[in-house]
């Protein structure tokens, strides 16, 4: 458990305040304080960059020397090349590992490299001042402490000291909790939570208090929040009504398939050739349909819902719902689940947390429409995910994951048919989140490359 969210001005956990203080202190004292993660990372990256430049330069030297020897210009012992080409010098500096001809003298080149590296200083955020945008610092969340009486609660390590509230379009008052002796800085960064994390903290653990922008007085119930988050699973947010969205997003379809490079090339390949020689191009039916009225797969299936319901459930294959099902599944087993965008996956699973060890598994979610409902014509129309992924995609993903030493896990989610209204209601007659989520089933498969030559014994 733990490791929720990402701070807006830091790499992961909120360290901006610490870094600012360290910077100010360093300026005042003239010596460095404790270093945050970003500083260490930047230092290491700089060092690596210089090493690469050095290596590229040495390689170029070697080649130049070899060439000089062969051309008989110099004897074997000398290493300098009398040819100096100023224009190529610049090229050499900017390119890291390529070779070029006509490289200058040893000293000159190193100097010019170092000179060039200064402006490329990585953004040590110490040297910049952020404009205070919306008031965003953290405030103490008292509900966080009150909800669980005794016993330690698994939580984000940092949050214990500087609790942050998950905020969705809300305003929170400033609280400055630092000592007087230290420089009085207002914390300008906030913690960003993904929708799945926020929902998990709110409803499963009950440690998060969420304020909606319009209903300040009433706290949202879990099912309200579920519907709200599901609505925001797509951009623009899925609208119930027929109102036209503010930004009409045209959806291009080729033969009713969503626009995809492979689909376009396939459509062109199979399109019948136009017989009339006066027409010069292939006719491929490409339909551009604006989003009004909404295409059927974006609108929740309302026909099958109980007309008396005041709450309309999202479609069962809603993106947020499926993601949350998988998120909750792995969290409840004890894994730390982080977004996997950086590695091309949906989630990364960590044993104890990102700081302790590398992630071992990368999870990709594959929604499956097995239920008989999805085979009916109306079911097929209402599927959000049309078309299937091909083998090349699977190999790409697998290669990416194995390059970063992770194991790929395909998590198939069996999507139930849209609720007829009975299954999701509890004894009180209201729709219950637990029942909604319990209708899904999850099955995992681990994918690994098998090498013919390596499995011989």
């Amino acid at each position, binding site marked *: 458990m733990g490791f929720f969210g990402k701070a807006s001005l830091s790499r*992961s956990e909120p360290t901006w305040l610490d870094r600012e203080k*360290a910077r100010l202190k360093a300026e005042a004292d003239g010596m460095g304080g404790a270093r945050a993660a970003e500083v260490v990372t930047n230092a290491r990256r700089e060092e690596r960059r210089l090493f690469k430049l050095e290596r590229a330069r040495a390689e170029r030297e070697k080649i130049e020397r070899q060439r000089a020897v062969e051309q008989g210009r110099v004897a074997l012992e000398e290493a300098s090349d009398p040819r100096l080409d100023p224009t190529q010098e610049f090229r050499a500096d900017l390119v890291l590992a390529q070779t070029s001809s006509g490289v200058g003298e040893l000293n000159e080149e190193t100097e010019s490299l170092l000179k060039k590296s200064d402006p490329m200083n990585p953004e040590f955020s110490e040297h910049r001042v952020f404009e205070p945008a919306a008031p965003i610092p953290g405030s103490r969340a008292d509900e966080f402490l009150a909800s669980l009486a005794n016993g330690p609660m698994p939580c984000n390590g940092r949050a214990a000291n500087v609790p942050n509230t998950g905020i969705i379009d809300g305003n929170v008052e400033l609280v400055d909790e630092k000592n007087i002796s230290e420089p009085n800085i207002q914390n300008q960064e906030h913690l960003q939570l993904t929708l799945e994390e926020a929902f998990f903290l709110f409803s499963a653990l009950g440690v998060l208090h969420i304020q909606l922008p319009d209903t300040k007085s009433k706290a949202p119930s879990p099912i309200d929040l579920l519907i709200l988050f599901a609505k925001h699973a797509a951009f623009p947010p899925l609208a119930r009504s027929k109102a036209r969205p503010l930004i009409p997003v045209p959806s291009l379809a080729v033969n009713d398939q969503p626009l995809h490079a492979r689909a376009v090339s396939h459509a062109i390949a199979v399109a019948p050739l136009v017989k009339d020689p006066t027409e010069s191009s292939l006719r491929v039916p490409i339909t551009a349909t604006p989003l009004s009225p909404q295409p059927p797969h974006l609108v929740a299936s309302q026909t099958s819902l109980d007309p008396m319901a005041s709450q309309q459930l999202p479609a069962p294959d809603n993106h947020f719902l499926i993601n949350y099902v998988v998120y909750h599944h792995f969290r*409840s087993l*004890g894994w730390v689940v982080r977004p996997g965008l950086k590695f091309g996956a949906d989630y990364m699973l960590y044993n104890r947390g*990102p700081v302790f060890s590398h992630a071992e598994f990368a999870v990709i979610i594959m929604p499956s429409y097995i239920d008989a409902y999805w085979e009916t014509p109306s079911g097929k129309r209402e599927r959000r995910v049309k078309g299937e992924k091909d083998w090349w995609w*699977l*190999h790409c993903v697998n290669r990416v994951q194995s390059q970063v030493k992770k194991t790929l*896990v395909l998590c198939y989610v069996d999507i139930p048919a849209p609720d007829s209204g009975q299954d999701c209601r509890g004894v009180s007659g209201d729709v219950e989140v637990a029942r909604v989520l319990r209708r899904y089933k999850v099955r995992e498969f681990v994918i690994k490359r098998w090498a013919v030559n390596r499995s*011989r014994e």
Partner: protein
Amino acid sequence: MADADEDVKPRSGPLPEDVDLSEEIQDFRFLGTATGNDVKIPKRGEKDFEPHETALQSNTLAASRQAMHNALSFQRVHPPKGVALATFHPESNMAYAINPKGSPLFVRMGRTLSKGEDPIGDDGLRGQRMWFLPEEVIYLVERGTIDLRWPVTEDDKDGKGLPVSLQAAYAMFLGEQQGLGGALTFERYSVYSGLKRAGYTVLRAPSFEGSGPPATAECHPPVPQRTWQAGLLSLAWLKHIFHSAEKEDQERSSIGIEPGLYRNYADIYRRLALIQWYDPTHTLAAAASQSPPIDDEIRVTYHVWKPGSSTFKKSDHGPPDFRIAVVDARETTAPSLQQLSNLMATLPYEPPKAEDQLYQKLKHGYKNVILAIVDQGVVSYLRISDAAFGRERLYERAGRGFGGKRGGRGGRGRGRRR
């Protein structure tokens, strides 16, 4: 909690298991230097990425090319005693040879058929007649190990029949014909020959054509021997095909944990368990997933044994080391849950050892198969295993203060001021 993965220094090369040297052309010069038994052939030569316009580089390149040319132009001869004559049998689309000798390949390939199966009938030579399947025939003809002939007619002077060319062999054996040797496609042959060249022993699986025999008992996990609870077992499990949360949680309306006193983390985690997950150790789960057969099923094509396997005998194979399912990349898409679950239902149940580490258990899985994805002759192998994450509950592992660390000093010595 900086993402530790991003700070991994890029390694100097790819992973050992990703390096498949057979996919790259190696430097043939090393063949010349490797004389004698004590010299180890180096794994790979130096790789230059672009021309340097140095004489050294072009000389090296020319030397490597010449070495390759020398190696490939070596003349292959057949020893006179080692010729095996095989005759094509059109009706069954197979070929037979009488007591073929001359190659160690014959130890693991071909089989003699019994009285009832032999298409020619029970004559004196039946016990010595070795029948080869289409893929075996093409492979042997390609290698030059057998001398394949058309059936003998009256016109043949030396009584041997016309030689079958390689082109004719491909034409006859690859195709959609029925009979004992049917359903061999180019994709399947690519996989077969690739594995044979690597040294494996490859035989057809029972589900080579069609769906094969129904799932036997070994495909299901063993039934727990709790006879006194048998009545309870049948009633309770029948309702829950998939593993569900505990019974009392069924009545909970919310997914949240009630505020209260909890003494350990495991209690909290157990209350969080909500989502149903597939449990392969559950007997009835495996049996109840008898979904109707779909159009494009994935089936196990070949049974493969390792080259050094000492337990393999022609008469009694033993269980295969690997099961390969051949898939055409151009005709199919990434597997759906339906296809995978049907495929898994035909596989035997092989759970990981209980004393393994967590990651090994998860990666080993309860059932596994190797998919050979063929894209116009290029084969790529993926091992798919049925992992049950739900069975490895992290919170039940012996605690190292699991979850209790409040972001202590980890990672790369990051200091933190409290």
